[in-house]
């Protein structure tokens, strides 16, 4: 049973829709790190007037987008080892300088995928095992980014394949950071995370706050200004 089947007749937002929603939320001039996987799609939806600088923890400051065909340069990849093109004015630094900038707080936001996010702002995205600590997993740069970026935005599906909640009171998986998440973007809506609470800011078209709350594993406040997510124009 997929999450789409869980609510017959109700469409969830597509990944592209969500990527565009996230992209257009970046204030002008932000420095943005996009995590591996779904968040990579966000890069395709920013508007040039936003003057967004995408950084990648492997030392690329200012990439333009995913490269294809003749634009591919085998030496130029992002953190997901996808070929990318460079923005005019890009700069390359080595890994220690790249993480120096990250720890310094250079990134206005890092957009990361996740398995779980909790109302205290913690999230879990690097290990699906709940077993004893065996030094197995794939952290990459997520812990550095989560600890040091000005904000952490999570882009994820609202529920598991079994339709269980991913927005929780407490993470059940080992966390990537014990706090720091400020926004969560799921296929059901846009949520802020503040003072230990999830607040529904925007709901997916056709979905009511109550329907979303029913698929959420933590108390869900509803913003007094809650609106339907608009596809950015």
């Amino acid at each position: 049973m997929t999450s789409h089947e869980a609510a017959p007749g109700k469409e969830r937002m597509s990944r592209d829709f969500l990527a565009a929603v996230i992209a257009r939320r970046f204030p002008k001039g932000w420095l943005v790190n996009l995590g591996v996987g779904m968040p990579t799609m966000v890069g395709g939806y920013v508007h040039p007037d936003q003057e967004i600088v995408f950084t990648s923890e492997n030392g690329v400051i200012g990439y333009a987008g995913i490269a294809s065909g003749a634009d591919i340069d085998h030496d130029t990849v992002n953190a997901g080892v996808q070929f990318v093109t460079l923005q005019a004015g890009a700069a390359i630094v080595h890994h220690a300088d790249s993480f120096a900038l990250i720890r310094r707080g250079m990134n206005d936001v890092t957009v990361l995928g996740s398995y779980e996010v909790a109302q205290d702002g913690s999230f879990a995205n690097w290990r699906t095992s709940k077993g004893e600590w065996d030094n197995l997993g794939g952290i990459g740069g997520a812990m550095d980014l989560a600890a040091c970026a000005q904000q952490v935005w999570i882009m994820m599906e609202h529920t598991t394949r079994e339709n269980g909640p991913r927005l929780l009171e407490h993470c059940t998986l080992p966390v990537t950071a014990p706090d720091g998440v400020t926004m969560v973007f799921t296929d059901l809506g846009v949520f802020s995370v503040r003072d230990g609470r999830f607040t529904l800011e925007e709901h997916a078209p056709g979905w009511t706050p109550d329907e979303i709350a029913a698929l959420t594993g933590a108390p869900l406040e509803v913003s007094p200004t809650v609106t339907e997510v608009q596809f950015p124009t």
Partner: protein
Amino acid sequence: MARPIICSSMAEAVAGIPDGIQLLVPGFGPGTPANLLTALYDAGVKDMHVYANSVGLPQGASDGRKTLNDLIAARRVRKVTAAFTAPTHPSQASVPADMIRAGAMEAELVPQGTLAERVRAGGAGIPAFFTPAGVGTLTAQGKEHREFNGRMYVMEHAIFADYAFIRAWKADTLGNLIYRRSARNFNPIFAMGAAHTIVEVEEPIVPAGELDPDQIHTPGVVIERLVQIPADGYFREVPR
């Protein structure tokens, strides 16, 4: 410290490397010293502790080059320190992860920025430093914590290895190196972080004085051996 030896083959470049070494392996897709790794594989060196970003997800390459994954699968690595020791999702197959699970190889999983900074510290004569990365997670368990200016940090120790393998774009006869685009990644810091640094270089090695002193990414004084990748060598990385 003498001038680097310019080797005429990959085999010569890895000659004499003993078993049991600590080895730094840079690369993030591009910038992986594939030719030196292949020569090391062929030389049979074993019982190594390898530091790398990832244990290497692909199961070998079709063109014959050997990756860290191949060295691990051949049981030549006793311990790995990396930011990726396993796929995040258990559904993805991984020989290294299976070996770690089975106790056939020791593993240390570290945040990527911490790995980079630990080697940078080692190459900079700094034995330990504090970082916020990993605080409140499994990776900081058992490590010393300390508060500075109201925030909690974890103490991390430097890494200074026996050997580093480096992949450069350009080099001169004194070992000065230039990297290209994101093939730079861990290379400049790993080049500083080992007692013996061996470099494979893509372009023909030029006479000293031809590279602009302002544009050199790694000063040659830390380089011990230098070898040009032969025409039939491995020039392009295998994208993951």
